[in-house]
């Protein structure tokens, strides 16, 4: 049975006005470098085919459209490689769409601003850098550092270099920074914000607090129970396309049915 984090059972203050996020026919690709085989084949390719060791564009999102009203929670589900993390990056402006248009209204935080800084820096220094990059004032960050450290259950590790952290500690710190910087729009990618069950509940409580404040949340998750629990709408991505978008219960049920059929198919093949 799923435990209910406080805050999720409350009425959600969804704004009928302009949406926080609008995605119109968005497509996006990654450029992937094709490694060369050896010197001879490189020369052959250059001389005979007049082609350099080229990049290949891998489509990650195709013609994706949806909107997220202010104060609502959109859950994004789908198999690995469906384009969920790419969608987060396109919404946050990190990755430009190849086609289409995304409009975002409000100050947003992408999943884990603490990720990406030096391992030789302490957790506290990483919090400071992550916050400053997000435009938070140094004074506010000084106030928040201890709170974030405590929330991330880092204790004395907060002032130790991050190279001494376990994988779980890094993830806890990154997700704590994301939820504590009080964004108006929060994009959470669970692939990057893991942690043990107790901490996940801890994060869920904090997320509920943000929802209570009327913040807009986009949650990329494999946890279908949390979709039903937290989301006001759900988007199922399949091979970069929208398979379903709408009521979370309906979308999750269809997705589960698809997963069951697919696993039966795999059994048959086996």
């Amino acid at each position, binding site marked *: 049975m799923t435990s209910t984090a406080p805050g999720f059972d409350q009425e959600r203050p969804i704004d009928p006005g302009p949406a926080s996020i609008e995605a119109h026919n968005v497509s996006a690709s990654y450029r992937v470098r094709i490694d060369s085989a050896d010197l001879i084949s490189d020369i052959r390719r250059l001389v005979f085919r007049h082609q350099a060791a080229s990049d290949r564009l891998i489509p990650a999102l195709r013609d994706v459209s949806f909107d997220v009203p*202010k*104060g609502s929670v959109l859950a994004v589900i789908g198999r690995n490689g469906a384009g969920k993390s790419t969608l987060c990056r396109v919404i946050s402006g990190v990755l*430009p769409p190849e086609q289409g248009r995304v409009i975002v209204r*409000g*100050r947003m935080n992408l999943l884990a601003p603490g990720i990406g800084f030096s391992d*030789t820096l302490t957790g506290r220094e990483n919090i400071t850098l992550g916050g*400053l990059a997000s435009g938070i004032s140094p004074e506010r960050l000084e106030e928040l550092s201890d709170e974030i450290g405590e929330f991330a259950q880092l204790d004395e590790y907060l002032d130790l270099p991050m190279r001494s952290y376990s994988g779980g500690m890094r993830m806890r710190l990154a997700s704590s920074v994301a939820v504590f910087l009080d964004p108006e729009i929060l994009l959470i990618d669970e692939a990057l914000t893991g942690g043990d069950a107790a901490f996940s509940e801890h994060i869920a409580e904090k997320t509920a607090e943000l929802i209570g404040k009327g913040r807009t949340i986009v949650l990329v998750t494999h946890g279908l129970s949390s979709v039903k629990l937290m989301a006001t709408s759900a988007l199922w991505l399949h091979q970069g396309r929208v398979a379903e978008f709408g009521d979370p219960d309906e979308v999750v049920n269809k997705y589960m049915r698809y997963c069951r059929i697919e696993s039966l198919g795999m059994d048959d093949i086996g």
Partner: protein
Amino acid sequence: MSETGEYSDVEYVFEANSTAVPDLRDYIEAVWERRQFMIELARADLRSLRTSTALGNIWSVLDPLFQSAIYFFLYVVLRGGGSKSQAAFLPILIGGFFLLGLSMAALGEGGSSIKRAKGLLLNSTFPRAILPITSVYKALRNFVPSACVFVVVFPVLGGKVGTGLFLLPLVFVLQTVMNVGISLLISTYVTLVPDGTNVMTYVNRVLFFATPVVYPVSLLPSSAKIFVAWQPLFPLFAAYQQILGGGVPSAAYLIETALWAFALLFIGIRVFLRHEREFAMAL
């Protein structure tokens, strides 16, 4: 139903195939708002360089001292004292090396600043120009101990001080402007051109020898000058040589340096802003 929380007026529009360069004033404002981030990032980077050493920050003073000692050994001890003019060139050579370090940092560290920050770029949104500019700022901070050592070493080695010294701050500012332009331009090139890093290895080496640091400009035959005077670091370091030699930099070198500096800054900004959106795709 309760009210939704207060939202700021910020609106972002991300469109496909947008080649429009963002409004420069807004962009500079956004970079300026993150100045504290730049300062902290540079400080953290410099600190992390020293944390794995036993002497820590003492290295920032030891490093220029040792470098000066090496040049002294090469130019005075190994050459048996050399001629008077060779000995007189030693303080100019040491100063030139320290100053060249700033431009080489803009080319090297500044150039690779986007590629090195892949994790940060894929997980945070901020004006990307902060990264190459931070490399220039970091090199400036790193230069401070070298400058202090040089101020002590220069008169000890018989360096001459002339009225041209008053123009040193101006030339230094022009070099910094040039370095910002170079780091913006090269970081775009290295990020987007697959073989950019390989090519830069040779560019750095050519620039090192084409820049008047290890040789006095006055000794350069005019036939050789044609090959080295075409690049931005030539007039800059020729002006430095004149100042550190106790003279006044020629107006031609100053004008040429200023033209290069502002042209590189202009081109660097234009190219960087035009291609900034492609970085995440290429990394």
